[in-house]
């Protein structure tokens, strides 16, 4: 029979199991954040907690200090992947986050260990606009320094990375599957590629008559105010004044939506830009480029 004491023990056990792969990340002044050893020699944390051009050190559960370098960043999901000396310490037990359901009991774990508990409150933050299907919202308190730490299920398996940087209003976690994709980029290519079109945009309101004629649900789209020469957008024939309505089938209502569509795995691939030029719809094929890396 399951008693409330069994549940309490399960939660404490989950924290204990998860905290073996949890480190303190010193990548900004004063408040350290939290990181998770995802694979041997690779630690995941929240991008906003690791400043550029800064020496990063990690403190493991055993109190030992390790040095680390930033191997890749994805500001879109607020994830940074750090490279550190491969040691024998265990990597996190990463779970299939496809089993996550709204209402599931989850814990956020910080270095220390520290913990807070709550439930999954939404599975798709932003409703397809912001990083569709990659961020879940959780009803728990992310205490100072928790960002970059694991979101764990009642068995102590990592289902995501918590961050206070993904949304201004919600407590969020990036799904483990999305994090693993970023880590895969680092393992295979040594970095996380940043997708690049070379277009500067701002939002514009679509006239009702135009929306009716073209059967568009969205009220706004983005207009190209700057097209970089020799960029993927220029090569595809995009010109200033073109209104981008959708990219690869995703509606673009604001410049942020364009950022959300430009996932690292789209680099080198063709996407269809649905645009309006002079009020007439047309499609442009763009090969997504890669933004030159900084740090």
């Amino acid at each position, binding site marked *: *029979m*399951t*008693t*409330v*004491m*069994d*549940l*309490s*023990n399960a*939660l*404490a*056990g*989950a*924290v*204990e199991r998860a*905290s073996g792969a949890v480190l303190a990340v010193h990548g900004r002044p004063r408040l350290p954040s939290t990181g998770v050893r995802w694979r041997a020699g690779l630690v995941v944390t929240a991008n906003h907690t690791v400043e550029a051009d800064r020496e990063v050190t990690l403190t493991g559960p055993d109190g030992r200090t390790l040095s680390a370098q930033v191997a890749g960043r994805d500001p879109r999901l607020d994830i940074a992947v750090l490279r550190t000396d491969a040691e024998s310490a265990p990597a996190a037990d990463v779970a299939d986050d496809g089993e996550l359901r709204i*209402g599931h*009991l989850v*814990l956020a*774990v910080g270095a*220390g*260990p*520290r*913990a*807070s*508990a*709550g*439930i999954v409150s939404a599975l798709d933050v932003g409703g397809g606009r912001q990083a569709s299907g990659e961020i879940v919202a959780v*009803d*728990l*308190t992310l*205490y*100072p320094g928790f960002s970059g730490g694991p979101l764990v299920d009642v068995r102590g398996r990592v289902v995501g990375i918590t961050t206070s940087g993904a949304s201004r209003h919600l407590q969020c976690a990036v799904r483990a599957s999305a994090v693993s994709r970023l880590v895969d980029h680092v393992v295979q290519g040594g970095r996380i590629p940043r997708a690049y079109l070379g277009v500067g945009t701002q939002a514009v309101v679509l006239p009702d008559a135009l929306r009716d004629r073209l059967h568009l649900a969205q009220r706004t789209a983005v207009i190209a105010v700057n097209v970089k020469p020799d960029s993927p957008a220029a090569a595809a024939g995009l010109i200033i004044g073109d209104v981008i309505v959708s990219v690869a089938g995703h509606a673009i209502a604001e410049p942020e939506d364009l950022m959300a569509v430009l996932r690292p795995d789209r680099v080198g691939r063709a996407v269809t830009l649905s645009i309006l030029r002079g009020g007439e719809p047309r499609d442009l094929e763009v090969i997504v480029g890669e933004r030159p890396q900084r740090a």
Partner: protein
Amino acid sequence: MSVLSAPEASPPHLAWIAERLRQVTVEIHTEAGGGAGILWAADLVVTNAHVARDLWARVGLADDRHVEARLVIADRRADLALLRMPRSGAPPAELADSDALRVGALVVALGHPLGLRRTLTAGVVHALAPARPGGRRWIHADVRLAPGNSGGPLADTAGRVVGINTMIAGGLALAIPINDVRRFVASAAAGAT
């Protein structure tokens, strides 16, 4: 708190634990203010020193009786105080071993937040660490407290007291581990004889 829904379905219910804790949580009123306390023995109540600031206090029991209690000893540094009152028939609190407490474990707090008598809040153990470097170890709990919780019990899911709720810091409940309280009461008793 959101973690309540799952435990509510499995016996023993948190409601049952709450009822047990209500019996051992007292109200403390002094001229200087008040708070909560824990029925330690038939005639002894333990609370925070910042709750029992006068020599005499009025203690409200779970059966709505009020009795006069006298301060036996207070340790302002440890923020603990021991009060003696006429023997009450109520069974005293059951105590847990706070050294065995683990981060992530479910805990409940009972007290009188903002004057709401014998109110339960629930959450998990957040950390077992000093509040500042080099200080003594506190139980940090992700449990909502308010003024009026001071001196009241933080308990495990068997209804055994693991700590005394003492402070709120950064939204967290800070409780003195019950093993520290045991030592305080033992030394107070040794000093009294």
